């Protein structure tokens, strides 16, 4: 004999399986989202803890650096005050020892043409010092050629004279040492 069941409840009968499935899906999704959240925050927490340690370490080191920098700067300024004149003196001696008259003579030999003659030459071992020459040439264009060659060397033409024999010029110029 077949039994007949009547639902006497006010609402429809619940489909237990569908309900359970829905609830489990929701719960699973919640677990998933919460898991992701927890993982995110935990890794962030770990990272920020490491960072804090690193920053604390760096800050300590930075402070040490600042202190040492100040100390060194003070000591350097004291040492500079004491030793700078001697350093300047030593440097000036080295500079003057390196000054080459030969280099300047070679330069003059190179820029002068065959028929030109230097009658007088004056050189001082002092970098800003000028080389002074009295030069004789048979033709004026030779002198002009020389002027052109010396123009890049701050040439100053003191005087130029013309005689029946030749052309004479008094010049000065400045040339830097090749070793510099």
């Amino acid at each position, binding site marked *: 004999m077949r039994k007949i069941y009547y639902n006497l*409840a006010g609402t429809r009968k619940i489909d237990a399986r569908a*309900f359970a499935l829905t609830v489990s899906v929701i719960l699973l999704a919640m677990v998933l989202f919460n898991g992701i959240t927890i993982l995110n925050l935990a890794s962030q927490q770990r990272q920020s803890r490491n960072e804090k340690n690193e920053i604390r370490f760096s800050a300590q080191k930075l402070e040490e650096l600042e202190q040492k920098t100040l100390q060194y700067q003070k000591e*350097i300024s004291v040492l500079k005050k004491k*030793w700078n004149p001697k350093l300047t003196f030593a440097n000036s*001696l080295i500079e*003057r020892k390196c000054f080459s008259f030969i280099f300047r*003579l070679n330069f003059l030999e190179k820029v002068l043409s065959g028929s030109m003659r230097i009658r007088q030459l004056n050189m001082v071992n002092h970098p800003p010092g000028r080389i002074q020459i009295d030069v004789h040439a048979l033709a004026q264009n030779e002198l002009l050629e020389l002027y052109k060659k010396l123009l890049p060397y701050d040439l100053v033409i003191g005087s130029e004279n013309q005689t029946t024999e030749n052309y004479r010029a008094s010049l000065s110029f400045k040339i830097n040492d090749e070793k510099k």
Partner: protein
Amino acid sequence: MMKKNKLAVLALLFLLCLSVIGCLFSFFYVQVKDISLQKRLELFGNFKNREKEFQVLEQEYNDWQNFPDALQKLFKDNMLAMDEFAAFRRDLDSSLAANQLQPSRIDFTFSTGREKIKKVNVKFSLEGSYRNVKKFIFDMEIKPKMYFIDSMTLSAAGTAVKGVFTLEVYLGE
């Protein structure tokens, strides 16, 4: 019963929404933290720069600390000692003689310089071929000790060259 279940599902959905919002917030939070991390890394980069600057300063400090010894060594190695002055005079004479130059007189003027260093001005005139005068200048320039030509005036004298030289010689202790 149905109503209660519906409420339960709604409640669960609400909680799910909260979880989703929480999850999204955690991503946002991580992003914000990343940005601040970048800034901190920049600060760290500055720290590295400071460290480099400090190393340069430290080098300068060490150089200054070593400077007195270096200076003393420079003077000791390159300056003539008082008792070497006679040797310098012999050396000058031999350089002149080697280039067939014979000054009629050589004047020495002593003056006190800085720090126990004496400066001697040596002045002489000579006459010879341009080649020999130039060779003499070259010989003087290659000497390792701290003396050098201070000034020179060369003038033509027929086929020869007349020269007036001033040398500076520094004598240490």
